[in-house]
């Protein structure tokens, strides 16, 4: 399902002006806000009845809580004004693929559709690592569409990962890192200024606090 719809978006040159493009740009703006606040730049919006009813950005550092992902923040905001049942008619636009935690939460909340930018092969829950949206469970499945404004979402994350996470116990020095501004989608062909064709989702390192892999034991 996801790959089919990827094609729809990728082949649609007017995506930028489309309804989906409009809402995804709002999500990207939330990501920009996150990067200003030194949070992992993942942003999202919830759209109900063509209106944005919830805005969210990753807020784990400020809350000192690793579960404060953008999706939860946006849902909490929406539920101040809408009953939970409204989520069944609500679409999520998020710059990065929802993680396993959020993918399950969205299922429990019975989200209608999920549109995301960059795939997440470290802990993506809608195709990256697990495919919770299409697994059978006590809640219904939901459709997911990936690759929407993918390069913008990836650049947002890359800009973040060349920074240090001051909140981590042992921040890793990243002074010498340089921003890699190339993605498989963006690499200009010499002399033409045109883009190479898309070759599937580009992978990035991880969403979350940048701390080395550890057992914690």
């Amino acid at each position, binding site marked *: 399902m996801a790959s089919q719809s990827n094609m729809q978006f990728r082949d649609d040159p007017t995506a930028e002006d489309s309804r989906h493009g409009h809402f995804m740009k709002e999500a990207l703006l939330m990501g920009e806000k996150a990067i200003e606040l030194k949070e992992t730049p993942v942003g999202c919006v919830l759209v109900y009845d063509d209106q944005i009813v919830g805005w969210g950005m990753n807020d784990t550092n*400020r*809350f*000192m*809580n*690793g*579960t404060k992902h953008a999706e*939860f923040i946006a*849902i*909490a905001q929406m*539920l*101040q*004004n*809408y*009953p*939970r*049942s*409204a989520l069944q008619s609500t679409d999520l636009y998020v710059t990065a693929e929802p*993680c*396993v*935690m*959020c993918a*399950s*939460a969205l299922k*429990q*909340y*019975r989200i209608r559709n999920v549109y995301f930018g960059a795939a997440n092969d*470290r*802990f993506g*829950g809608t195709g990256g*690592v*697990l495919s*919770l949206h299409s*697994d*059978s*469970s*006590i*809640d219904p499945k939901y459709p997911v569409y990936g690759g929407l404004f993918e390069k913008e979402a990836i650049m947002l994350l890359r800009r973040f990962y060349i920074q240090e996470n001051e*909140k*981590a*116990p042992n921040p890793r020095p990243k002074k010498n890192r340089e921003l890699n501004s190339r993605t498989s989608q963006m690499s200009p062909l010499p002399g033409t200024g045109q883009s190479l064709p898309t070759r599937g989702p580009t992978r990035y390192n*991880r969403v*979350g606090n940048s701390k080395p*892999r*550890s*057992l*914690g*034991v």
Partner: protein
Amino acid sequence: MDIEKVIRDLHPLGGQVLPIRTVQETRPVEEFADALVAEVNVKAASKVIKALDSAFPKDPNLPLSHLRRFAKREMLPQPLREAIEAQNAPAAPGQTLFVLLSPPLPDVEKLKAILTPFAPTPAPTTPTDTAADGAAEESPVPTIHLHPVKVPLYPPFNTTQAETWTKTLWPVVFNPAAPRSFVAPPPQTLARAQESIEPHAGYYLSLAQRVAQEAEQSGLGRSVGAVIVDPAIASELAPEDNDQTTWDEAVLAVAGDARYSRPEGGAPSQAQQHPYIAPNPASKTYNADLEGGPELHALMRAVELIARWRRENDREGPSDTPESARLSPLESHFLYRHSPVPVPLSPSSLKRKHEDHVSESDIVPASNDLHTPLPAPPSVDHAAPAPATPRIRTRAQGGYLCTDLDVYLSHEPCVCCSMGLLLSRFRAVVFPRGGRLESGGLASEPVVGPVAEDGTEASSGEHERGYYGLHWRKELNWRALGFEFVEDVDVEGDGAVFHA
């Protein structure tokens, strides 16, 4: 409620702690991939490696160190050896080796070009071979033949598997000390954690069940409880303490489920709609619209309490969040009994701290007011004359999320909470097997039930559930150690359907 008495009256669950196997252990993936084998001159072995490694850099995500790079002819599995001998010109015995070209496979022509300089010199034709007289005078051109093989992508779990592969596919090394490429926790790590968990697990789980009971009786949530323990503190508790009066010293926070506590869209919460009715009527069925959300589940709330405590003590960050604003008596007792107030402290400073806390609770929106239970009453023993050292490490003390902590749950957490505990960096998670849920995210295999007379397995009568084994997935960025507590007495799950 006399909290101290409630705690003292708890009876530990009796039973044993068992590691939850990883999904790779319960469903070992035997993934194989195509590889190639080429015969090369034995003297060129090191040059071959150099040439291959520089031409085709290894993929660090595909560690194939369990595959031997070279094999002597006599080490080759029989079928491969026969296939090779049918094709290759016979080389002088002992003069050649077979090199493995492991996946991902590069271009065959490029491979041949790289390897040709190291091709074995064919054995000179014997003088008695008269048929090919003229042609045999010229020495044949050394050529590289590539033979297809299948190789296992993951290291063997044991020697038997290694031997089987060695005999049928390609020589494989079994290294019991090597991290099993993240498919399972290192045995020593697992054993150490299990040892540290065993002495008090029955108590912490009993407390988790008591917290669950409190949540249910308040009408605010389902009967699910979570207890966060610092194993470093637990390890200092005297294990020979027969009275077991100190086990709760290591408890940092407890939290009950509160899914019915949140008003949504301006409407009163489920708890407010059914005041003084417990358990909440919404808990009789699973109606998604009445289930609050996973952030109101016990584990997520416990994690948020630790975070909230740190925020309050670091005096930065948001001071409170509505979903955790109100604490039950047990929650308040454990979270605030050991505040890191600088010593020496005066009773008045302690008192002021209380008031701070209460006023913070009071600033939550009025719509969040609940009929029951009462807002977190700071416990009295908070002002005890000899304040213990802070239990929860502050940010300044290196406290970061739930790193190095263990969480004990009355039920198997849902998929969302299971990932939440990984994102919170817990060391370990423990729940009673009787608390398994169809919607759970940790179990990795069905419980093998007692075999009935007719030989069919006693079925729990449940539908298919996912066995995600999320505590330890090699694909995920974070991992925790997972344990089930198997009680001595048979505890049947009640087959309830909801997310814990």
